[in-house]
């Protein structure tokens, strides 16, 4: 038994390895079901709270949520990682998953997020407005190429280039000292004050870092609003539970929780 479990564990966790999964639609009392949710890093806190609510509503169910950048999650799903729900921070990853026939039904846009600049509360590089990230000697960190938060940041810089004059984008990019695995890692660089600034989502400015960081807004005409799609997956072990999760996230209660964590309701 232990031998059989190992390959499953290596992918995303034991969920979906056949442990506790019952026939589709049949949930016997007292039998543990597991719902595996793959979600973008920026949903970590909000989905953490929704997990508790979902488990209260479905006492025999355990929710296993895995938070990574949407692009990593897409790769995991394409490689056959057992999962029931995918919540992406960008349309592209969801479109790709849908194109590969991995998604059940039509994905729903459930929330919006905007980009902000996050700086240490002491603000060592003196970044007071968006333009200041182009100043020389600013230590800027970005998430990895392909991570939606970083891709949006690059799009914003492209737009800003048109407004602030050529060279702006280049000046900002030459300040980049590191490309972090995901937005949370980039934000933590600012939390420990090793980086002077990063581009993150409004939802990344979480209560636990508010005493160490502050936000500098990006002008609305330059900003790009991220839309988050969610969908149950075609190979879901528990299609019913997956649908219930999507319903919770798009319900009034779910939207309220998401709003508490800095996301803009979109249902």
């Amino acid at each position, binding site marked *: 038994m232990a031998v059989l479990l190992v390959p499953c564990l290596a992918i995303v966790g034991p969920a979906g390895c056949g442990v506790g999964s019952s026939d589709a639609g049949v949930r016997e009392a007292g039998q543990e079901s597991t719902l595996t949710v793959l979600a973008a890093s920026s949903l970590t806190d909000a989905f953490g709270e929704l997990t508790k609510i979902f488990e209260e509503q479905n006492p025999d169910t355990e929710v296993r949520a895995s938070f990574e950048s949407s*692009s*990593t999650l897409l790769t995991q799903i394409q490689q056959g990682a057992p999962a029931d729900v995918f919540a992406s921070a960008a349309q592209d990853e969801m479109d790709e998953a849908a194109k590969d026939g991995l998604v059940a039904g039509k994905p729903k846009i459930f929330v919006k997020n905007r980009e902000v600049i996050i700086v240490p509360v002491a603000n060592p590089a003196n970044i007071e407005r968006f333009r200041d990230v182009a100043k020389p000697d600013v230590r800027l960190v970005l998430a990895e190429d392909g991570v939606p938060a970083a891709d949006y940041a690059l799009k914003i810089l492209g737009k800003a280039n048109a407004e602030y004059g050529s060279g702006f984008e280049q000046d900002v990019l030459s300040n980049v000292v*590191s*490309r*972090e695995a995901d937005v949370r890692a980039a934000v933590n*660089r600012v939390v420990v*004050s*090793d980086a002077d600034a990063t581009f993150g989502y409004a939802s990344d400015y979480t209560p636990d870092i508010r005493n160490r960081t502050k936000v500098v807004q990006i002008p609305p005409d330059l900003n790009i609003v991220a839309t988050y799609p969610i969908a149950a997956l075609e190979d879901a072990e528990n299609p019913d539970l997956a649908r219930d999760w999507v319903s919770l996230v798009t319900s009034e209660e779910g939207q309220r929780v998401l709003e508490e964590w800095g996301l803009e309701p979109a249902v």
Partner: protein
Amino acid sequence: MKKTGKGGLLPSTLAGGDTLASGMAVTALALLAGFISLPILSLLLWTVNENSWRAMATPEARDALLLSIRTTSISMLIIVSVGTPAAYVLARKNFHGKRLLDSLIDIPAVLPPSAAGIALLLTFGRFGLAGKYLEAFGVQVTFTTAAVVIAEVFVAAHFYVRQATVGFSQVRRDVEEAARVDGAGSIGVFTKITVPLALPALVAGAVMAWARALGEFGATIVFAGSFQGVTQTIPLAIFAEFQSNLDAAVALSVLVLGFAFTVILVVKVLTARMTADEY
């Protein structure tokens, strides 16, 4: 070793004894060999099938490989030059608190590398215990190649020091004494007698330490960051590619596999020759 004359698959010492036990042992070995070769085979097959060899020749791959070679070379230089005398002291001298010091050196080996990275970040980061003084002098460690070397030395030094200590303690004291009687100074005894006699252990330890430094990921990504040509070593480049281009990630894995295999093979052949020359 006594020859059984059968020339079969079973090692001679096992074949003569309990056949069931030796059969089980051989099965275990075959299982282990299969378990290790299967993932390696999968990497190669994927690269062949997807024809993703070209990903090994991209600037990202080249920069990552060169950075890995550069940083592991510097790390090994530091580890060997500091670790050799340190290991000798641990092997030969008895002093108060030696056991505590011994355990301290083992800590990086049991500490998860990500935890090591956070520890290094809190030490050498801008407001770190040591970092704040460096920052005052305008020296920044995080996000530089120096940080990669620091991470590698931190996680890998143990492997060399441990092996070297064992190697030194196996060198008989009377051989050293005899050389000393013949008029050799203590540094002469160390470099001409002790080190050559302990060489196989030193090389084995260095290979282990180098392999650990080459594979270093957790401490580097947490502490040093990831930037092409500066801090993005091969393991970090593989992880970065995994986010966007799986074929390239696989190709890079094959590249580092080939590189590591070649280095270890060369070292083994060289040490076999060196030790053969000694006797």
